[in-house]
């Protein structure tokens, strides 16, 4: 018993040093040679940091391509999803309200064109992407509010659609980069 106990304490100390200290230090050291230096890559526009590449931002004004709804309002210090079940009546009301709000702000769009990702919240509440369909349904509104030719806005979205890598996965649009490019268009 006592020998096992002493071994256990020593073994805990030494494995702690290897896996709790040495291993994370090694990875942190290696991360220094990556583009973001291990601190997270940032998006820079006009010499100003506009946010993190990976972390979605709240865009809910008509001037910008809107991002997806978020259960935590894009609070990147306390993240999470809605955890609402598919049959929860309160949740379904919320989705209906989002659809109605979207249609009010985008009067040229028919209901059956509204893609589901625009009215549902993501898992972490920080989704940096929307689907290409979700970007295209906002083109009319952006062109009207910003008084830019519709074709020009559509071409901008075309440029920002990322196709799936090696034909695996989903096509998507990075909302922050699209909006940064939109600001530069003016």
């Amino acid at each position: 018993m006592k020998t096992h106990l002493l071994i256990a304490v020593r073994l805990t100390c030494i494995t702690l040093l290897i896996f709790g200290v040495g291993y994370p230090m090694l990875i942190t050291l290696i991360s220094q040679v990556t583009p973001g230096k291990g601190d997270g890559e940032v998006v820079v526009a006009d010499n100003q940091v506009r946010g993190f590449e990976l972390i979605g931002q709240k865009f809910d004004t008509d001037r910008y391509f809107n991002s997806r709804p978020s259960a935590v309002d894009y609070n990147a210090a306390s993240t999470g999803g809605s955890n609402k079940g598919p049959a929860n009546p309160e949740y379904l009301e919320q989705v209906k309200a989002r659809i109605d709000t979207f249609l009010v702000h985008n009067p040229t769009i028919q209901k059956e064109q509204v893609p589901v990702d625009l009215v549902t919240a993501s898992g972490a509440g920080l989704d940096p992407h929307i689907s290409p369909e979700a970007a295209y349904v906002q083109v009319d509104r952006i062109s009207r509010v910003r008084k830019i030719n519709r074709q020009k806005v559509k071409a901008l979205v075309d440029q920002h659609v990322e196709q799936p890598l090696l034909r695996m996965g989903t096509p998507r649009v990075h909302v922050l980069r699209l909006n940064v490019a939109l600001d530069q268009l003016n």
Partner: protein
Amino acid sequence: MNSEILGIVVLFVLTMLLAIPLGKYCSRVFLGEKTWLDFMLPAENLIYRICRINPAKSMNWKENVKASLILNLIFFLWAMLILLTQGWHPFGNPDHITSMEPTTAFNTAISFMTNTNLQHYSGETSASYVTQLVVFCFLQFVSAATGIAAMVSLFKGVLQRQASDLGNFYVLFLKSCTRILLPISIVVAIFLVFRGTPSTFEGAAQVVSLQGDTVSVARGPVAPMVAIKQVGTNGGGYFGPNSTHPFENPDYLTNLVENFAILIIPMALVFAFGYYIRKPKVGYAFFAAMTLVFVSFVAITVYFESAGNPMISEMGIDNSAGSMEGKEVRFGTAASAFWGVSTTSTSNGSVNSMHDSQTPISGGVYMLDMMINAIYGGAGVGFINFFVFVIIAVFISGLMVGRTPELLGKKIEAREVKIAALVAILHPLLILTGTAIASQIQTNNPDIGWLANPSFHGFSEMLYEFTSSAANNGSGFEGLGDATPFWNILCGLCMLFGRFIPIIGPLAIAGSLAGKKYIPEGAGTLRIESPAFIAVLLSVIIIIAALSFFPALTLGPLAEHFSL
């Protein structure tokens, strides 16, 4: 082929193909044969010397259990100490996180010690950088190694003839860490940092968004933790929402690699069993049985997640992307459903979408997967659970043909079957008792505020929590308000029993198998790699899981499905 389906097919096939050589490698490590990582030997010998371990000393099953339990006790005490004092640590806490509430600390310490990684706290708001590394990252290595060591003792018990030696626990434990977990974790972590996962000791960053909002972005030493969380079938995420968080899982490629990391060791260890006992066909046969269940589960969940929520389809919008609530656009529904089955099969418990918001049948499949808890299963312990089913199936086959049941040349007698039956019954006992108590309290106090969803789904939230605890999985229907003393303590106990009884029981079986005489194979010997036996085995698994849990699944996910 649809690009989302292609993604998961490629992932599955690649993982399977790589699991075979890794399984061979693992068996060589545990048999003490030459491997290319033998350059670690001097370091390992140094550790034995410092700890005063005699690596040549043989241990019987009781000594193995004793060593394992005592070591785990020290892990638990260490975790409690750090969690209860993190608010006062002089460094490694740039965001000034306070000490953990005692019952949450109790739950968390047990959770990480038992390889469950159920999280009743949210990483970015409740754990300092020191805690994340010296408790969570550390325990994710050693808890996985504890499970693998127990499994190798079981392998050895099957192979031994009239002996009591089940291998030296400390050697098996250390080798699992240095030869298997560490090298794979380093590779995965390096991949992640190059794809943008942070690994930093800087505190949260303040940025002004394009729209003009000031946002605080939590970060930290994320990459090392995410790697071992997947590789060791742990699942304890750095951030609250786990691998849905873009820092933990930046893109589709990292999602593939992380999902690969979830499956690779559990799959490899099934093959390792075959190679270890010098009957690779047994490994392949067991793998085929598990894969049959796994693939069926994937097909069901992918179908329902891609079809989407029918209640939302009825609203008349474009629902073609599928059930997107709680999912990320960069992964899509197929990769999320595949991950869901992977994580619940392997007792991993990390998530890349919110299980609480998935369609009812998917949620039900995840629960059933954890109720079986032996489809590949957690690092080491998954195979142990599977072995318990094998003992029962051998016994039943023996009864059917009227012969004394034999498993790989060893007679299976009353003692082994009794232990196996008790271990198999423990799982439903923990889950159903826990859910019954919680449901009773909820019914009597409807305003207690536990459930995020009413009706059948609310019941599913409680059932899922206990299933996840007892299966040492750690995923959750996270809408459940579980950071209360009731859930902390009850789930903590479930995890504790659900971890150690299925280790102690099978090791006792291994001990008694090791002591038995070897009976050479004859014409009437039941060959456990034969399709007939695999069919019996699958029936046993399905009957035990279905009979015990079908009523509960009917009240939750099935009822909800038919109400949609």
